[in-house]
């Protein structure tokens, strides 16, 4: 039982990261109709920036994180303004390929600036362990869940309690009618990209902190959040969170149980587990858990 709770905490922590990344995908998709594969590049950039603000500039972690979120968000806004807003009238496939190209460019920026060596985040969590009842768990796992919870809560307040949030929901619902209310679509797009960038930064920092390291490999992890997005439904923020948590738990449980239960599947079944779920969902319920059937562009 104790083992299971430990696994559950680890799974929920990983799942929280996937949820943050998936929320970034959903934000941009709902506001602009773009499926943004460059999200992984933003995640990695965010982690490297936080690392730099801590180790290079000497800020404390609690100051470096918001600054890194701000900068990553601004970079995302810049991408929207310079590249993606100019491609809005193009076919979905063209835009997706452009996000892929931007990903490949983004992935090269941090190593060029900070080197190809693996770096430590020097966060306050490190390998610290805290006792949850009688169950020892990593401190960073609890903080990861807390950050994800705060992020989701803030977004809920933003979307349901502010004028811009209302305008964003309106634009996602009917862009043409939103324009007739005087809502500037570029402002909505910029906000969505900024949020996606800031969320990616939190995810990157939590993935590169604790027992793990900041490395170019971080970018790949964002791709594993895509199954979470499909699972939850591409246009559903709640689905992104639920899908992220489910994928995280599935991955951790597979990593622990599969080697003994199905040894002939090898040791890395957990790495492909999210994609098994992805393919399964695409075949059985393509609109996701919370999505509505049939939508326009991908």
């Amino acid at each position, binding site marked *: 039982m104790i083992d299971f709770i430990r696994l559950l905490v680890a799974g929920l922590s990983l799942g929280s990261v996937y949820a943050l990344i998936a929320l970034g995908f959903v934000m941009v998709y709902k506001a602009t109709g773009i499926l943004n594969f460059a999200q992984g590049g933003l995640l990695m950039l965010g982690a490297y920036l936080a690392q730099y603000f801590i180790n290079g500039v000497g800020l404390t972690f609690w100051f470096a994180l918001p600054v890194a979120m701000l900068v990553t968000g601004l970079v995302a806004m810049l991408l929207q303004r310079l590249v993606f807003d100019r491609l809005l009238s193009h076919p979905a496939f063209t835009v997706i390929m452009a996000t892929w190209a931007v990903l490949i460019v983004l992935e090269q920026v941090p190593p060029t600036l900070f080197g190809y060596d693996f770096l430590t985040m020097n966060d306050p969590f490190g390998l610290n362990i805290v006792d949850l009842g009688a169950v020892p768990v990593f401190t960073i796992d609890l903080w990861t869940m807390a950050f994800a919870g705060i992020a989701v809560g803030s977004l809920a307040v933003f979307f349901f309690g*502010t004028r811009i949030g209302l305008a964003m929901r309106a634009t996602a619902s009917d862009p*043409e*009618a939103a324009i*007739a*209310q*005087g809502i500037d*679509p570029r402002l909505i797009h910029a906000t969505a990209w900024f949020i996606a960038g800031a969320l990616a930064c939190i995810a990157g920092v939590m993935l590169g902190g604790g027992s793990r390291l900041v490395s170019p490999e971080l970018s790949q992890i964002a791709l594993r959040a895509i199954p979470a997005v499909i699972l939850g439904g591409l246009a559903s923020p709640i689905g992104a969170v639920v899908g992220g948590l489910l994928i995280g738990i599935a991955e951790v449980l597979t990593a622990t149980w599969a080697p003994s239960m199905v040894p002939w599947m090898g040791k890395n079944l957990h790495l492909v587990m999210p994609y098994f779920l992805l393919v399964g969902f695409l075949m059985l319920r393509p609109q996701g858990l919370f999505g509505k059937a049939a939508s326009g562009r991908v």
Partner: protein
Amino acid sequence: MSAMLLASDISIRFGGVQALKDVSFDVSEGEVFAVIGPNGAGKTTLFNCLTAAYRPDSGSITFRGKSLNGVRRRDLAGMGIARTFQNLGLFDQLDAAENILLGRHNAMRSGFAAAALRLGSARREEREHRERVAEIVDILGLGAQLGVPSALLPYGARKLIEIGRALAMDPTLLLLDEPVAGLNREETGRMAEIISEIRRRFSTTILLVEHDMGFLMRLADRVLVLDYGRPIALGTPAEVQSDPAVVAAYLGTEGFV
């Protein structure tokens, strides 16, 4: 009364189709002006020109002396021009009050950051806007429908919400695209009452595109009749109704009384 909206010699062609040819008219301050015509007459094209969705090939449209040529669609709200959509442009997941509140988007002064951070002044402003929304909900009699996503409401209620949203903009010119299309007789009567009420209370200038002539008879001050993109008559409802060209254009068409 001076001309608020002035259209002179508007022409627009799509490929081989001359959608509008030399259409001219003026709408006076406080007037209810209707554009009618059989299907394919160019009503929707004209509406799209007035809402900056299309740009005429030639001719000009001026609103209070300012040319609409080169104006972006999202700037219309700021100029005091509100519109509704023929096939409804409601935000389906939002309820009546939220939809109507969005009509106040342009009137909200507090900046982006203040709104996001929910600063005191922004909150106070929002409360004022919500009061205005409540007043509009009251005028339209939508009180019982609050809290329900608009997609789940009857079509007539959805049409009213859209009018309410346009009204929330405090427009000087209200453009209605087929306000009674798809409504039953009772709902059509209600819509006519609402439009008269809007005019009486706010003296809003209204331009509406419609093909229900009976509905317009009671409502419009003047009517412009289009046929195959060309203006064939302009005058009071009684005048155009007895115009031989209009009768010919409508011959055998139902809905023309």
